[in-house]
């Protein structure tokens, strides 16, 4: 039996801004199809840069990043991307914001609009479709951004600390929404965060990054679907402290 081909294969990836110190320094990390990968590390450890490399927004100076068919990654509608800020277009209605990835490719059809309505319904935003982003709360804006990232049903979803600015309860709700929608479609996810418990709660695998290097790739064997009460269990906290020790141990 052969090992399944990784969905996105990062091999010995190196990247430095403007010829300085390598911000990503020889990372090898194959992402398995359908898995939820979390990348955790302190601010400035290079995790956002690695995400941009995985998106094809940056090209590695050495090493390779290949998709399962062997081609290098490039930005485009096959990828879903979610930023730290919701980054909505303030002059367009919620529904048009969700449909933006479609309307940049072609004129949205009735099926696209129906899909957008479905996504908004699943995220509890049915009544807000005709509103403008400024009329929504921060959590609702993040949900719109999530719907926009998922509208083209991308095989790979990349998220850069998307919930960092939200309060704990809203963040928990969005985490559950995200996992539910991704499991439903079998989406492969790369989720960057600095929050260890968020990484453990969401991830099938947690990569721990420090100063451009991958310190550990930990498989989280917690039952799915996970609920927020899981956070109080001992296994959960053992994972968290293991990652915490990996991160702090490297600093000394």
């Amino acid at each position, binding site marked *: 039996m052969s090992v399944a081909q990784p969905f996105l294969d990062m091999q010995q990836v190196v990247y430095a801004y403007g010829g300085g110190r390598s911000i990503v320094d020889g990372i090898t990390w194959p992402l398995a199809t359908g898995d939820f990968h979390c990348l955790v590390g302190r601010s400035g450890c290079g995790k956002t840069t690695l995400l941009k490399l995985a998106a094809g927004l940056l090209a590695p100076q050495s090493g390779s990043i290949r998709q399962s068919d062997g081609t290098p990654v490039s930005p485009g509608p096959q990828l879903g991307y979610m930023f730290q800020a919701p980054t909505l*277009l303030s002059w367009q209605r919620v529904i048009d914001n969700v449909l933006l990835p479609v309307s*940049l490719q072609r004129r949205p059809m009735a099926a696209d609009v129906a899909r957008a309505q479905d996504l908004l319904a699943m995220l509890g935003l049915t009544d807000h479709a005709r509103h403008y982003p400024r009329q929504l709360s921060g959590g609702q804006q993040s949900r719109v951004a999530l719907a926009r990232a998922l509208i083209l049903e991308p095989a790979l979803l990349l998220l850069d600390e998307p919930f960092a600015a939200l309060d704990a309860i809203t963040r928990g709700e969005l985490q559950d929404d995200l996992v539910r929608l991704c499991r439903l479609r079998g989406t492969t996810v790369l989720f960057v965060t600095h929050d260890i418990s968020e990484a453990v709660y969401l991830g099938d695998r947690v990569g721990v990054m420090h100063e451009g290097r991958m310190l550990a790739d930990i498989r989280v064997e917690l039952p799915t679907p996970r609920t927020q009460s899981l956070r109080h269990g001992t296994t959960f906290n053992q994972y968290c402290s293991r990652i915490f020790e990996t991160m702090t141990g490297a600093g000394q």
Partner: protein
Amino acid sequence: MRSVLHSRGLSLALFLALLVVWEFIVRQAEISALVLPTPSAVGRALWSTLSSGYLWPHIEATLTEMLLGLALGGIAGLAMGVALAESALLDRVLKPYVIVSQVVPKLALAPLFVLWFGFGILPTVVMTALICFFPLMENTLTSLRQVDANRLQLFRMLGASRLQTLLRLKLPAGLPGILAGWRVALVLALVGAVVGEFIGASKGLGAVIIAAQGMMDTPLMFAALAAIAVIGLLCYQAMLVVERRLLRPYGEH
């Protein structure tokens, strides 16, 4: 809504009060109508020139020059702003010329334009267009450059073409700034049209002012000034209405 009406009412009351004070001072001090006519004399001059049909062709000429100049100069400025914002090469090559062309006072060019384009409305339109060019170019350039980096990255991620990024992101995001440029250009266009008529025109409110000066008809001069003020006010208000409509999706701006 009520407080708006209230402040409008106060504005109007202040205007009427100023007219009364003006009338009173001129009558008391017995100032000659050649120096400063009373508002009632100005009103009579305005009424007679409007009802006799004397002033209308001049109003039409000034409005035509102003709007043509505004449209031509504004569209050219908008296009240049887009070109300079999109191409760093064009920006480096053309910017010095653009700036030099703008620091030369265009009113000083009016005699030259008369020489080139004759005494019709053309020299005034050209000058007005040149005046309107700069605010549109500057505001467009600045607005397009200020687009949020995250939104630009979003469009890159979504595989948007350069044209799509311009039309779907940069221009809509810059719309408030671009409209502010149009508002400034509108006011400058009226000044440009009137001053252009001072120098080389037989028609238009600027020409009326010069003619009134020659005939020592100060009330007529004031009547023309009043007409210019009303044109400016109405156009500015119309612009505000358009702006408010276009910016409604943008919320409180």
